[in-house]
Each structure stands twice: as C-alpha cells, then as structure tokens.
C-alpha cells in the first residue's frame, strides 16, 4: 500500500506528510501531522468534535479523505490564537464558562469562527444553526450560545 504525500497549509504554515490509503483527515492531522486539537468523537460525521475549516468552510475531518486537502488551507482550533493573543471567541468561551470537559470545544470554536467570519453580528437563531452540527454533552448549549453572541458583540465594538 503506497502512502500518498500531501502538501497543504495548516493554520497558515505549509506542512507535508504522508497519508495511508483511505486515511481520514482527522487521523492524518492527529497522527500524521501532530495537530491534536481536532478530536475523535464518532468517526461517523454525527458529533462535530473533529470540525476544521478547509478553505474557510467547515468540514468534518473524520469524513474527509486526507488527500483531498492537498494544496488547500486547513484551520484547526490549535491555530485560532495569534501567538499568545487568543481569538475573541476563545476569550468569550473562557469568560462565559462555555466548556466543561472541553472535548467538544475545539470543534465548537471552529464552527463559531466560521459563522462570525461570514456573519459578524449573528442572531441567536443563527448561532444555534451554526453549532447544530456540534454535540456538547456537558453544558446544555446555553453558555456556548451566550459566549458566541458575546464574542460577536465584543468584535462589533472593536
């Protein structure tokens, strides 16, 4: 079984590694590239813990063939902060106690960022829709919704 070389951009930096035939992007990012921020929750596309963006659009890494990111830009939660400066969503999640076990948090943040990038001032309903592909078992969603709305408001002021 020949491995496939893959060159792509991860969180702004060019990366290269090899994928097994049929390997999904989640396993490739975690074990091949060493970005552990996307999480395995189901491997079925039903939980959203592995959410990343590819060229700005949210995808489920577990349902994405690793080699399909060749030449494309992938963003994960590990790349949200700029140096030591956290993204406003990260600040808002901390401030609003929007995580308990933290396992869904990286995927949730990516879904939220994709929303705010295209809609800086979303309604509550739009936030609900944007995170509807991400399951959280701990929080009951309310603090997460509040955090995303708070991040949007903070950004609107800035």
């Amino acid at each position, binding site marked *: *079984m*020949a491995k*496939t070389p893959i060159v792509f951009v991860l969180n702004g930096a060019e990366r290269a590694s090899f994928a097994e*035939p*049929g390997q*999904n992007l989640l396993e490739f990012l975690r074990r091949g590239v060493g970005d552990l921020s996307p999480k395995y929750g189901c*491997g*079925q*596309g039903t939980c*959203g813990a592995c*959410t990343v963006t590819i060229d700005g*659009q*949210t*995808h*489920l890494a*577990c*349902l*994405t*063939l690793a*080699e*399909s990111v060749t030449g494309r830009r992938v963003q994960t939660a590990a790349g949200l902060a700029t140096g030591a400066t956290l993204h406003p969503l990260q600040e808002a999640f901390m401030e609003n106690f929007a995580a308990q076990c933290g396992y869904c948090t990286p995927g949730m943040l990516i*879904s939220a960022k*994709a929303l705010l990038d295209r809609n800086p001032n979303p309604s509550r309903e739009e936030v*609900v*829709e*944007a995170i*509807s*592909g*991400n399951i959280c078992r701990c929080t009951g969603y309310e603090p997460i919704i509040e955090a995303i709305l708070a991040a949007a408001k903070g950004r609107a002021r800035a």
Partner: protein
Amino acid sequence: MIQSVETHATIAEAQRAMGADAIYMAGGTLVMRDVNAGVTATRIVRSSDPVLADIRLSGDGVTIGAGVTMAMIAVHRDLTFLAPVARSVGGPQIRNMATVGGNLFAPHPYGDFAVAMLALGARVSVAGQSAAPRPIADVLRERGRIGLVASVQVPRPQAPADFGFLKASRIKPKGVSVLSIAAYLPRQGGRIRGARVAFGAMGPMPLQASAVERVLDGQSLDAATITRAAQVAVEGLDPPTDPLATTWYRREVAGVHLKRLLERMARG
C-alpha cells in the same frame, strides 16, 4: 480495507474505472463513514471533473452537477425554492460536504434532497451514457446498479408557492427524518395540474404518493381537498421501524404532516 485512491479527470473516466472492488466517493459523508468502519471496497474512485460542480440554468429548468453541495444550493440566488430543502440536510459541516448526487444514494432515513427531486420530477444524467436523462423514480429504484450520476435536471416552479417541503425530526435544528415530504403543485387557474408529492423515510427509498396526487389533481388547494389528501397519505408507503419511530407512528403522522404542509402551501 482501502488499498488505493484514484482521482479521474472526467466523470466518464471515473465511470470506466468502477468495478466490484471500487466505491465512488463524492462528498464523502456516506462513503467515508463506511471506510472508517472498515466495511467497504478496496478502491476509492473520485473525479475532479469541474462539470460536477456546475449549476446551469436553462429556460424553466436547471441542471445541477452531481458534485454540487447542499451549501452551494442553499445560497444560490436562482435556487431559492430548493434552499429550505438543502438547509434541512445535516448540520453546517455536512452541508459543506454532502452532494446532490450522493443524496440520491443515501440510505434510510437520509436522502431528503432526493425526496424533493422526486417531487419535482427531476431527470438524471448518468455518466458515460449518451442516452436521454432518466426519470428520477427509475434511478432511485435501481440505485444500486445505475452507475455514476453526472447531473440532475430539475424543473423550476413557475411560482414559488407551487413547491413546498417539510421535514419532521426529533432534534432541532439538526435532526434526521422521522419523515419528510415534498410537494410540487403547479396551478393553472387556481386548479392543480400535474401534482407530484413524495415522501422520505417512509420506505426503502423516497416514494411518490400517487394516491395523494390523484386526490389533488384538478382540485383547488382548499380545506376539503387537503383533508382528503391527508386521508390517503399513507397509501403505497411502506414505512420502517427504526430507532426514531415505529411503522405505526410514521403511518399515524404522515397525514398530519401532509396536511400541515399543504395548508402552508395554500396560505402561500
């Protein structure tokens, strides 16, 4: 276990590369799940054919490439009648991945977009075949052996109110279908001419509700007609029991949801 992944420049080449040991992957939402579970073929065949991502308007119809995603449809300004259908599929991530072509092959209880295609009387072009596009009902019936879908040709309703879609699910806003219903009710002089109504999750594949269509045809969409349509809603349907609902429940509420959809369409 997957041994190789092949990417072909055209959909016709991909079609030729298929075989018993191969699975075609479009958006990946169905196939990658099987790959992850280790229950699939040994070769993945893909195509980078740009035509697959085309949306082409032609007169009163539109040709949608099989690789067009739900997200592309949801935001397309000429496909607003399909936007609610596309938005009902999966969550945002799935909609960025799931394709029109793939949806035709989605097993129960998935395939809500195919329900809409069936109600609209879409026709399907199969890769590598020069023959005329085939009626979607045939394609759905034979979907295990139809070959690769290249595109779907969909009539566009003359009036937005002529087409309606409803999905009943247990989870909001993202849940899979207890059932879904699409209705295409072109009206001339207030009368329905050529009604097409289809149900999803009410059988092994999206099914046309012929009895409902017969009740609606030639009638105006008034309360009495809607009541009669609801009464025959389950005729010809074969709903399964699954973790979401039983056969009994699906049969009980099919008419209720049909009535609600038709009432909404009657209100315009």
